[in-house]
């Protein structure tokens, strides 16, 4: 909402307050100022001059040499190229050193050998729109009113010496979308008097009821409808002061009747509409719901198709306006309009909002209606419009007003408990000070009950009242205290602690944490080679996505990770290791929220192999004291290389998968090197983690070691060998270390040699070499029996 500061003076007096001071104080009392714009900031040193002489330039067929009186002693000589310059005109003169819009600087100089001490300006050069002038000026320089004072600043002439304050109005304050509302806030903020004169309408006879009748069919959507008529209308430009105020608020001046409706809209915050009575067929206005598919051409000459939920203003034949949104093209004010009907009505906020949204029209009117207006305001607004008609002399007010009520809400009353307000705010504000604030805001107080004014739909309960008290007392004056009361413990949950722990373990191993989007394209699953019937294809879909690329919630984080690897690879970062603790989204039945399982995603590319990513996991499991981890071959996950991927299980429960990315997936993501990823279920890892770690006493008895090279079938996984060895070794086998795996000419084809160092130790005595030898023999025997393996 734009507020020209000069307009405020109609209702309150803040003379002597600078724009900066004004902005600061209004912001701190709750009307946030976004900025203050001086309308004339782009124009400097342009004054009114009078052309005394005008001769042709001796060396040009179109330039004139003029002597111009600019009010500073001797007339100055200016060369002017405009065809319409003539002796006797008052004109805008940019003096030497003047500044024009666009940052143009005017300097004196010679034009074809003749000295020119400035420039006579056109309206374009001054950046002044014809609508501000009220007419379309002829081509050339701008000829000013003959009464303009020579030497005076032209900015005064066009109302450009004006500061316009731009407010950010919150949605709970529809009353502040008006000059009067902001003036009331201003007066309360600066503790000044505030007065809005009641509009006075002189009636010129006749009776509106003979010309028009109004019926409201939907009394919920239309809460009040007032109409007045004006006859003998003479359409023309509105006066300079009105045009300037409209333009200052960013509203284009059109003609006197339309300008009056816009002026009242800005001043009172009440949208107005003007119809040409010739276009109201049957002399009857009906406020009704639109028929499904009903089409109306709005003022902007667009056809709008309506539905039954939309409210229209209709005559006996057709809709002539979309209620609260925009008038119809068919009933607009024309140059030859002679009788005007003013509408000042109150429509339901939600209804206007939905219609405006659906037809894609957000107007000054709809944006006010949708916040909820004051149905008491319709009468003063329409009276003000008629008062302005008279003031402008552009018509005669027909006697009488039509005023039809729909269903309106009952006003609220709130208990006034000053002590409660103080204890809520933590303040000690005197009751009298509260009452003074209420009075300035129009809140009545009788018998310790508060009655908010009709223009404040936001004041419904005690907390709302407390805010009013706090705003005008000053938020800054409220003390700052720390809470007292029962102590609470600020600690992380075990899951949150594990998240931190995992992050630390992974960063310690050189992994960088990443943040990726949780929504992606459904085609991401194609890139991952996911089968068409895979459960991963059942995704949470966004019904109004920004685009296909962000239209479904991911069911796997593999795509997000591979995109990261791809991006870095293509940015020519040689290698990288990453992780993310994120979520995937698994749909439930319609109407239910999806599951959002926490997921740990790991990824790395180049200079790494399967055992690097496995090592990262093993380090993590060891840190988290997860024992009995098993790696099973993964052959049926299309994202992974079928020979180089694994399912990880702990105590039989699946934790996740790791492996080399399938070459065709790598191609889909344009990654030109090998990459490894792993996706782990955070909750499964959490459940497997052992947070109950106990100390094992350090033994002072020495260990005995035995090395053995075992030859077995090349397909036998080392995990199988170890299982046999551990079983045979029993409790005395304290450590088993795989030192080397060898295949080659030294051993038979189809076999491999695996070298282990086994450590035997007893907690309570020194083990003898004989005992170790016996255990070793048993191990070798079992290996031979169960796996057909032999000592090399």
């Amino acid at each position, binding site marked *: 909402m734009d507020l020209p500061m000069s307009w405020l003076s109609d209702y309150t007096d803040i003379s002597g307050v600078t724009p900066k001071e004004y902005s600061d104080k209004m912001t*701190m009392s*709750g009307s*946030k100022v976004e900025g203050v714009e001086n309308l004339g900031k782009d124009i400097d040193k342009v004054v009114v001059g009078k052309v005394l002489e005008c001769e042709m330039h001796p060396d040009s067929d179109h330039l004139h040499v003029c002597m111009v009186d600019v009010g500073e002693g001797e007339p100055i000589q200016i060369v002017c190229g405009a065809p319409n310059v003539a002796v006797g005109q008052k004109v805008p003169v940019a003096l030497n050193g003047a500044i024009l819009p666009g940052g143009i600087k005017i300097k004196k100089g010679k034009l074809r050998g003749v000295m020119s001490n400035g420039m006579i300006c056109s309206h374009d050069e001054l950046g002044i729109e014809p609508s501000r002038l009220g007419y379309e000026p002829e081509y050339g320089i701008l000829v000013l009113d003959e009464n303009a004072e020579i030497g005076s600043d032209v900015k005064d002439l066009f109302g450009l010496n004006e500061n316009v304050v731009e407010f950010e109005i*919150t*949605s*709970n*304050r529809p009353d502040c979308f008006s000059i009067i509302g902001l003036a009331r806030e201003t007066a309360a903020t600066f503790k000044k008097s505030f007065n809005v004169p009641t509009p006075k309408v002189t009636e010129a006879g006749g009776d509106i009821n003979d010309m028009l009748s109004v019926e409201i069919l939907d009394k919920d959507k239309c809460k009040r409808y007032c109409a007045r008529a004006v006859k003998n209308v003479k359409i023309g430009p509105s006066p300079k002061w009105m045009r300037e105020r409209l333009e200052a608020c960013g509203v284009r001046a059109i003609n006197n009747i339309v300008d009056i409706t816009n002026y009242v809209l800005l001043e009172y915050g009440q949208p107005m509409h003007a119809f040409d009575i010739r276009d109201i067929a049957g002399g009857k206005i009906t406020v009704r719901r639109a028929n499904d598919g009903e089409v109306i051409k709005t003022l902007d000459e667009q056809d709008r198709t309506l539905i039954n939920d939309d409210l229209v203003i209709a005559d006996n034949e057709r809709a002539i306006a979309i209620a609260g949104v925009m008038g119809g093209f068919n009933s607009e004010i024309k140059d030859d309009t002679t009788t005007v009907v003013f509408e000042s009505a109150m429509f339901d906020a939600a209804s206007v*909002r939905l219609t405006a949204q659906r037809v894609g029209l957000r107007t000054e009117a709809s944006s006010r209606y*949708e*916040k909820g207006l004051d149905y008491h305001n319709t009468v003063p607004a329409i009276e003000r419009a008629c008062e302005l008609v008279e003031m402008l002399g552009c018509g005669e007010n027909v006697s009488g007003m039509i005023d039809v009520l729909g269903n309106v809400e009952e006003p609220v009353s709130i208990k006034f408990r000053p002590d409660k307000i103080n*204890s*809520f*705010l*933590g303040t000690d504000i005197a009751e009298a000070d509260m009452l003074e604030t209420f009075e300035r805001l129009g809140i009545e107080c009788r018998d310790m009950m508060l009655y908010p004014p009709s223009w404040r739909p936001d004041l419904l*309960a*005690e*907390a*709302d009242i*407390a805010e009013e008290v*706090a705003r005008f007392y000053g*938020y*800054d004056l*409220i*003390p*700052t*205290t*720390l*809470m007292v*009361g029962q*102590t*609470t*413990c*600020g*600690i*992380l*949950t075990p899951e*949150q602690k594990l998240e*931190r722990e995992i*992050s630390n373990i992974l*960063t*310690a*191993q*050189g992994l960088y944490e*990443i*943040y*990726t*989007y949780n929504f992606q394209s459904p085609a991401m699953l194609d890139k991952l080679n996911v089968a068409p019937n895979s459960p991963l294809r059942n995704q*949470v879909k*966004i*019904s*109004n996505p920004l685009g296909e690329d962000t239209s479904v*919630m991911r069911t796997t984080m593999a795509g997000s990770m591979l995109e990261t690897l791809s991006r*870095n690879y293509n940015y020519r*970062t040689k290698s*990288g*290791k990453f992780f993310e603790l994120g*979520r995937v989204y698994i749909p439930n039945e319609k109407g239910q*929220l*999806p599951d*959002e399982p926490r997921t740990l995603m790991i990824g790395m590319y180049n200079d790494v192999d399967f055992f690097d990513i496995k090592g990262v996991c093993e380090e993590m499991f060891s840190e988290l004291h997860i024992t009995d981890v098993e790696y099973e071959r993964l052959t049926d996950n299309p994202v992974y290389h079928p020979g180089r991927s694994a399912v990880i299980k702990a105590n039989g429960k699946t934790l996740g998968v790791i492996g080399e990315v399938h070459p065709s997936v790598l191609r889909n993501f344009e990654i030109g090197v090998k990459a490894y990823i792993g996706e782990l279920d955070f909750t499964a890892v959490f459940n497997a983690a052992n947070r109950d770690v106990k100390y094992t006493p350090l033994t002072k008895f020495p260990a005995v070691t035995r090395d053995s090279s075992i030859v077995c079938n090349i397909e036998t996984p080392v995990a199988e060998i170890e299982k046999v060895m551990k079983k045979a070794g029993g409790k005395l086998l304290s450590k088993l270390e795989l030192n080397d795996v060898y295949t080659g000419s030294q051993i038979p084809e189809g076999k491999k040699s695996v070298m282990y160092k086994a450590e035997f130790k007893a907690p309570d005595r020194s083990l003898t070499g004989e005992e170790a030898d016996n255990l070793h023999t048993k191990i070798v025997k079992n290996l031979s029996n169960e796996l057909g393996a032999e000592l090399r």
Partner: protein
Amino acid sequence: MKEQLQQIKASVERALNDAVTLEALEEIRIKYMGKKGELTAVLKGMGKLSAEERPIIGALANEIRQNLESEIETKKAAITAKLEEEKLKEVVIDITMPGTKKNVGKLHPMTQVMNALKEIFMGMGFSVAEGPEVEYDYYNFEALNIPKNHPARDTQDTFYIEDNIVLRTQTSPMQVRVMEKTKPPIRIIAPGRVYRSDTQDATHSPVFHQIEGLVVDKNITMADLKGTLERFVKELYGEDTRVRFRPHHFPFTEPSAEMDYSCFNCGGKGCSVCKGEGWIEILGCGMVHPKVLENCGIDPEEYTGFAFGIGLERIAMGKFNINDLRLFFENDMRFLEQF
């Protein structure tokens, strides 16, 4: 003979003084105390002495020998130490060469900021709550006093899954979820991802992060809200930081405010970082709306509370001087390794 011994002692001490190498030291030892050494020779001649003289001279000779031996040992240690020092000086390395690194990874800058904020609030007794990102309309809007068709919904362009299920547009639904389950006193923060249908550019992202805060207890006042949040900002930006509270509007708090802090760059004088205002907006806050308390089954006559919502990206961008929001989600290694 006594004089002879004294002379030997004096000449050995002179020789020791001049000796600088281990070899010279050995020569001295042999010359005086070797099998054919001068002192040994003297001791061998002891037999010729009288019975009275023998013990006296013998004691003196032994004392001199022991002294000399110990002096030689001391001198030897000194020379050895000196030689070692000299040797060490010959094996100098270039200590400006790079160290051997273990290539530790980094936490994402947003996590770093989030952890810093969590720690401040945990120190004030807040625990950390989490909840779903795909959320019922009821929790995201209705229970927070934002009914259907409320204009406040306009400012939060919402992604819908179904009519009554949305991607949460704020972390505020966690207020309701916590209050439904927990009896006061409540002090929680709820960090997390939120979603709005803003096209991605340098200052907008359809996904971003907030930290919600909620306190509900008996006798909680607006002064407590101010005090707590001022404490938070001073912990984050330093004791000299000033804050101001501007009245604002949120449907689920009343009174509501936005909090600004004095610009970290210029201290409040006005600069390009704060766009000349001297203040930077950091969060929205307010006293929990009595209707919201009621919606959660808490009696607003008995309990009051305050709530706040902090945008994390803005803090991270300010802290690290990052000017483009998109960098957070691009995960370019060259970006990630800087923090």
